[in-house]
């Protein structure tokens, strides 16, 4: 056994690793099956009790049931994240490639555009549809041909054309970043599970939305404009009193009186020094977590910082949807004053035990100002404090309002809200006249840059065009999965059958190692967080056909060696070693094309290239290690190895 030990450990390791990597996929499959079973039952129930229910309402009801099931146990989500991902072509969904419309952007940026400008833009747009060159360059060339300096429309008079061109390129680049942030923000709020938003090249954004049901809405998400608002954050006293009311309503202990307000504020300032994120109520020290949650359903998930000066609540990522549902209840809405709303922070502000923590702010419903007045926002490092800051400029209309607003609210906080979520809530230090403000308090330069993007998003839209769109309905996806699964199974059976008929016992070894090859491919795909697409499945089937090639080469060689009169053991050894070079050479050529395909392909085709690459590696391992060990073992034990 000693001589096999190393190789056996290697094989065992690979098998265990693959199984380990595939385990979440198996659990996830069972979870999803259980969930859809419950949802289907509920659907029947709802339909039976309310036959007239509209399709929309039924959908949203079922969706919320499904969501609550999914969120009930955090391990469900964890397993889902770790499981083998299916591409859009298999699970259905939408893939959209967006390109920033530089032409429209330039029109927005241009000062005093005249007729000449408009004609040039029209001509350039026409040329841009066929040319590979960037829009900025095309426009610049057109103006140069007419002997017009770019400074007539862009930048300032002292700048040279090349300076302006590089500035405009940067603006176009910024627009992509802005569009990405807006889209990410929207998609997050819309609640698409596992969206991907990627930048491709300098001007393109690829958005993948799995399982999206309503195409129209999705497109709206992607192409709409963004709303930036400045809203006043309410005082802690008021906020806490509202929160307390909500808590009472939810707990069912609400009595409509305004007397208790003063005692509540005390409750929050009292200290419970357990952790930074702790519950507010001192009287509940002895209560267990469950009891506390029953008594104070709101504060159990919207936790206040007992030491903090503000009444911003901390909310765990998992509880966000739950809290939003609570806030939307009609009886809760009744105790929230009409002119006040609760809004979440856009990004988690911290992480606790791997859980993202969001902030919940209480703000005025009516904005003090909207983002249209902002002319520029730049993130830099402050020369005085060495801390990251954002310099924000406003036009004269905005500046006048801003002076009034800041003057009246010194010491209060103003939340910067893009499309309904808070990006920052700085404190007003003093009255700002002239429209130039400085926002400090960003954690790092990156955060400050994000804030600058957000501030500009309200002012300067990033016009995007859909240049490629692919939607796959869920039914076609399911068909493809079935076809793929059946083909893989049949392919495996047919090829194995052939090998066994042709090579007998050696063929069985080949069929066995083929099984391992498939296991390794799936395990690796899951482990690498790769996505399985329909062409990817085709790649697996193709691999089944190619994987046995190595076995064929080896077996044919062994037969040849045996013809020369060698013993079985000697033939096996020299058969393997002499077949190496042909096997390696032929696999490497296929690998070269797979790499190139991966580089140049997109989406599903990349999935194919990936499975092909993994398949080649896995089949080499199976043929050269697993099959060899099996042979060695059988020969050593004197088990008869027939090779046809």
């Amino acid at each position, binding site marked *: 056994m000693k001589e096999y030990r190393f190789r056996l450990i290697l094989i065992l390791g690979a098998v265990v690793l693959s199984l380990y990597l595939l385990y979440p996929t198996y659990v996830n499959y069972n979870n999803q099956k259980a969930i859809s079973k419950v949802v289907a039952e509920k659907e029947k129930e709802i339909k039976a009790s309310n036959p007239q229910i509209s399709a929309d309402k039924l959908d949203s009801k079922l969706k919320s049931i499904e969501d609550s099931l999914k969120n009930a146990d955090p391990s469900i989500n964890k397993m889902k994240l770790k499981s083998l991902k299916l591409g859009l072509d298999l699970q259905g969904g939408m893939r959209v490639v967006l390109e920033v419309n530089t032409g429209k952007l330039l029109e927005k940026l241009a000062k005093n555009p005249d007729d000449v400008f408009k004609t040039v833009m029209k001509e350039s747009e026409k040329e841009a549809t066929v040319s590979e060159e960037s829009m900025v360059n095309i426009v610049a060339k057109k103006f140069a041909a007419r002997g017009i300096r770019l400074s007539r429309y862009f930048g300032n008079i002292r700048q040279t054309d090349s300076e302006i061109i590089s500035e405009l390129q940067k603006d176009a680049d910024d627009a992509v970043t802005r569009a990405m942030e807006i889209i990410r923000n929207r998609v997050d709020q819309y609640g698409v599970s596992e969206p991907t938003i990627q930048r491709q090249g300098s001007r393109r954004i690829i958005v993948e939305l799995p399982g999206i049901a309503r195409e129209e809405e999705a497109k709206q998400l992607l192409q709409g404009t963004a709303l930036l608002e400045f809203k006043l954050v309410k005082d802690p006293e008021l906020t806490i009193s509202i929160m307390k009311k909500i808590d009472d309503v939810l707990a069912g202990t609400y009595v409509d009186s305004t007397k208790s307000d003063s005692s509540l504020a005390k409750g929050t300032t009292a200290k419970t020094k357990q952790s930074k994120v702790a519950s507010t109520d001192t009287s509940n020290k002895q209560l267990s977590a469950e009891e506390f949650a029953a008594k104070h359903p709101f504060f159990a998930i919207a936790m206040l910082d007992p030491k903090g000066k503000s009444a911003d609540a901390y909310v765990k990522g998992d509880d966000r949807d739950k809290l939003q549902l609570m806030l939307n209840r009609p009886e809760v809405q009744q105790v929230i004053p009409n002119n006040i709303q609760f809004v979440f922070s856009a990004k988690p502000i911290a992480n606790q035990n791997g859980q993202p923590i969001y902030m919940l702010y209480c703000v005025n419903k009516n904005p003090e100002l909207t983002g249209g007045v902002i002319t520029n926002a730049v993130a830099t490092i402050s020369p005085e404090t060495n801390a990251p800051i954002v310099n924000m400029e406003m036009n004269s209309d905005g500046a006048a309002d801003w002076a009034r607003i800041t003057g009246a609210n010194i010491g209060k906080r103003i939340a910067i809200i893009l499309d309904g979520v808070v990006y920052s809530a700085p404190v007003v230090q003093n009255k700002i006249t002239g429209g130039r403000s400085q926002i400090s308090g960003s954690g790092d330069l990156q955060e400050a840059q994000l804030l600058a993007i957000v501030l500009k998003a309200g002012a300067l839209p990033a016009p995007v065009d859909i240049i*490629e769109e692919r939607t796959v309905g869920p039914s076609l996806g399911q068909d493809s999965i079935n076809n793929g699964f059946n083909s893989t199974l049949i*392919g495996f059976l047919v*090829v194995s059958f052939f090998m066994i008929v042709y090579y007998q016992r050696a063929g069985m070894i080949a069929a066995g190692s083929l099984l391992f090859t498939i296991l390794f491919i799936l395990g690796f795909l899951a482990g690498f967080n790769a996505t399985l697409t329909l062409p990817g499945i085709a790649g697996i089937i193709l691999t089944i056909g190619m994987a046995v090639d190595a076995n064929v*080469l080896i077996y044919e060689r062994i037969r040849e060696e045996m013809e020369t009169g060698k013993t079985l053991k000697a033939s096996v050894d020299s058969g393997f070693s002499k077949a190496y070079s042909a096997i390696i050479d*032929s696999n490497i050529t296929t*690998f070269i094309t797979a790499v190139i395909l991966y580089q140049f392909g997109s989406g599903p085709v990349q999935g194919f290239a990936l499975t092909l690459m993994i398949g080649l590696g896995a089949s080499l391992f199976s043929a050269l290690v697993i099959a060899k060990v099996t042979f060695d073992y059988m020969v050593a034990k004197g088990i008869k190895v027939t090779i046809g």
Partner: protein
Amino acid sequence: MRIFENIHIDWLGKRKIFYVISISLFLIGWVNVLVRGLHFGIDFKGGTEIVLQFQKPVDVSTVRSYVEKIGLGFVELKTFGGETGVLIRTESQNIPKSIFPKVVDHIDNAIDKIYPGIPKTKVDTSASTITYAFSNADTTNELISRLLAAGYQAGKVSEELTNKQMVVRVGIADWIKENLRTNMPDNSFQIIKEDHVGPKVGNELKTNALIAIALSLIGILIYLAFRFKFIFAVGAVVALFHDVLITIGLYAALYGVIPGLNLEIDLTVVAAFLTLIGYSVNDTVIVFDRVRENLKIHKTMPLEELINQSVNRTMSRTILTAGTVLLAVLVLLIFGGEVLRAFSFTLFFGTIIGTYSSIFVASALVLEYANRFQKKVNF
């Protein structure tokens, strides 16, 4: 079981016959390419493609008559999958200018249905959008949500609270769907697939595909030149050209000949071609590997005899390795479904031609070279 064992055939002596076969295959294909042209899918041409799944079986000609009435120019229709699936494809990017007024009327009507007689002004119309302005923000918002619910792509022009403008987008696919919905009210449909590819993207994909194919050939040439002699690498790559060109020719020749087989060149077909390039060289490598080995053993044997012997000795494994792949690809061709059909077809015929060329073309070229220049090929 054994096949092709101990064969002693003088393949290279008959190489002229194989040249004739190859050249005829090539000519048949490429005459078709030149006369009938190659048919590219929307990945490369750009355009819009929708696949609808009707509830009841549907006659393509009925759908065609409705779609043709719209006046979009050339529109292609075919069945997709079973009797209830219809694929509709057009190369146009946007609704033609001539029929756009109809679209505008249609949307005007839809607005009037929600708010009869509401005063509205059209601010702007482009190739695929109409922008309206209304008297106040609340009406605008209400209208947008109602239109959205009715399946129109309506949206605000700006998110400012005072926004009074609404933009409605109508793509070519939306317009076809809308027309079919009104014309075929008793047979509703689901969209199972919708693709839209802009003209620029199509061109880029084409360029990328060509670059990828060229790079693969160069990559293989370099690798084989490094592993074998340069002339062997050239022989192998010429054989690859041979495979790809003949398979492309076959595409043109068989287009529309086999019913139910949609031979259009799209991204997955290009992927199949690249795989073919990578795979079909395998058999060539097996033969060359044997030639290399034999050259070391039989230093004095004439090259022609040596190659013949190598081809004969490796014949069984060449056929077997190609055979197993063909089996797998055949399964894919039959059971893989509509989406993968062209892909599997390419691999199936490509592998057959690739195996043929590995045996009969690649080694013959090496021999031709050695004869022509009286070079001694060694390692």
